[in-house]
């Protein structure tokens, strides 16, 4: 039997095992020395300047707690791991942890409180040990009746409403208002007339949004004007709808338009129907209608998404006159490329008033122009003040949440 320690075979595995054993022994030695070294048992310095107050501009049931970080958080001995927020309903009562934040954070919102009840708070800086701030309170939560952060919006709404009322009243008194021509709307008569001459229907798409979207409502008001012209010209109007509520309203709008035109008998409810509320199924359906019915004129007015170009290009291929209008900025280039006329942004909202030529409706367009002039002036002033770091002016227009 070979009793030598360093034989060739034994060497092979001992070379592997020995360094590993040495490493484990050293590691254990280091751990033992470290365990016996003195530990910092002193607690971190407590958070200071703790404030607790009812969270402003909220629905209630929420208290905000702010504090100044412990001097051992990010500085000093830098040992703070985080903070616990403690709450009690009496100053001497039992405090319970209601939340925790990591080191470096100095604010917390307690949303598990009741309105009109006294609460006391403490903030605890944590390491191996901990230290508490002095108790603050009592503080009560309550809901507010006015959102102070939205004052700038309120002022703007009041001014704009006053402008609308002023210009509408001026128009009613007979003041002449100039509204620049909108080619897309000037073409409506021509488009409806062409459809009548060709004996082909007119297609009206209300967009792919719901009735709560202002773009859909604006489109419905334009539909009323267009439907009246269609009824006068005795042409056929097709309105496939994406949303059942929009369909119901569209049926009423078209019915009333036919009634106004003195042609209630020409109204056919089946021409305003629900097609699909699936985006591309709707696009496929509308494309099919364009190609089968060979529509003479297509209106795309409302809110559109990725299907805009699929619809407009198919209409273009079919040779229809196309009038589009949307407030979806990303879809505008597609409509501009594929349609004969496109109402860009605000033109779309002015279209109903423009078509009606009613002075009181045109008055609202004038108010829009003045609103725009005001915004331009504010942008120029803002640019000027921002260049000189005069932030007070810019902060005036910050809307709080």
């Amino acid at each position, binding site marked *: 039997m070979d009793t030598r320690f360093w034989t060739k075979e034994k060497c092979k595995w001992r070379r592997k095992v020995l360094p590993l054993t040495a490493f484990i022994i050293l590691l254990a030695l280091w751990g033992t020395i470290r365990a016996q070294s003195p530990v910092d048992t002193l607690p971190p310095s407590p958070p200071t300047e703790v404030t607790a107050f009812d969270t402003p501009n909220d629905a209630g049931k929420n208290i905000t707690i702010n504090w100044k970080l412990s001097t051992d958080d990010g500085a000093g001995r830098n040992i703070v791991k985080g903070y616990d927020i403690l709450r009690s309903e009496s100053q001497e009562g039992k405090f319970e942890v209601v939340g925790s934040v990591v080191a470096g954070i100095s604010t917390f919102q307690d949303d598990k409180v009741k309105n009109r009840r006294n609460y006391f708070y403490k903030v605890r800086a944590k390491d191996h040990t901990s230290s508490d701030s002095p108790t603050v309170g009592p503080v009560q939560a309550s809901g507010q009746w006015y959102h102070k952060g939205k004052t700038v919006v309120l002022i703007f709404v009041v001014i704009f409403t006053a402008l609308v009322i002023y210009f509408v009243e001026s128009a009613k008194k007979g003041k002449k208002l100039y509204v620049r021509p909108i080619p897309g709307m000037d073409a409506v008569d021509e488009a409806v007339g062409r459809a009548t001459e060709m004996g082909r229907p007119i297609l009206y798409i209300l967009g792919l949004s719901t009735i709560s979207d202002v773009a859909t*409502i604006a489109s419905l008001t334009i539909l009323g004007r267009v439907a009246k012209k269609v009824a006068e010209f005795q042409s056929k109007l097709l309105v496939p709808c994406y949303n059942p509520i929009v369909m119901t309203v569209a049926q009423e709008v078209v019915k009333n338009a036919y009634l106004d035109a003195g042609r209630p008998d020409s109204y056919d409810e089946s021409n305003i129907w629900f097609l699909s509320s*699936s985006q591309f199924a709707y696009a496929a359906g509308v494309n099919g209608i364009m190609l089968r019915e060979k529509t003479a004129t297509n209106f795309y007015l409302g809110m559109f998404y990725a299907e805009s170009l699929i619809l407009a290009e198919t209409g273009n291929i079919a040779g229809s006159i196309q009038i589009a209008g949307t407030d979806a900025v990303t879809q505008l280039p597609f409509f501009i490329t594929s349609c004969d006329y496109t109402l860009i942004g605000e033109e779309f909202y002015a279209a109903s008033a423009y078509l009606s030529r009613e002075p009181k409706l045109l008055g609202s367009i004038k108010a829009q122009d003045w*609103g725009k002039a005001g*915004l331009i002036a504010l942008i120029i002033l803002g640019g000027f003040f921002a260049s000189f770091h005069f932030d007070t002016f810019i902060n005036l227009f910050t809307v709080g949440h």
Partner: protein
Amino acid sequence: MRRQIPLAITFIGGVVMIIQYFIPHQISQEIYRGVLDWQMIVGGFVLVLGIGSLVTHHTEKVKRQKEGWGYSLVALLGLVMMAIAGLFFGGMASDKPFMQIFIYAQNPIQATMFSLLAFFIASAAYRAFRARSFIATLLLLAAIIVMIGRVPIGAKIWSPIRVISNWLLDYPNMVAKRAIGLGVGLGMLSTALKIILGIERSYLGGGK
């Protein structure tokens, strides 16, 4: 009365919702949530009207054998098939027929429709970028710079193109977008006010 009552409801509803926006109190939030709930409830009922409309429209086309009635027949069969699959064959679990048809039939069809967009973009771009005027030429140049600047090979060809492309998007493009956005905001507010104040009433009929 036929016009006064809807106008009064619109006015009250509109004013309440405007005021609600400025009141963070819980009562105000509950009113808002209530309105949203009612909207969903009404939406649920109106869906029945939508399906009714769909069935009537297509049945009529099939009955009268109007042009393209075959498509209407497919639409009706699809509706019935999905309803049966959902109601009688295990509901909406992912391994049941309803979801299987949705995942393996409807989704690919929709994806196919969406892919058509690539071809339409090509044909629309061809029309838009024809340099027939000074402005069209500018548009063409801007489009070329932005397109090349957005792809990795662009920077390899000429490294400043990425910077120019980003500048075009961040400044001239952003200015135009924000200008349209401001106009849209004013237009929306103006339309909402016209409807709430009863100035715009064409949706009720009887307008000039």
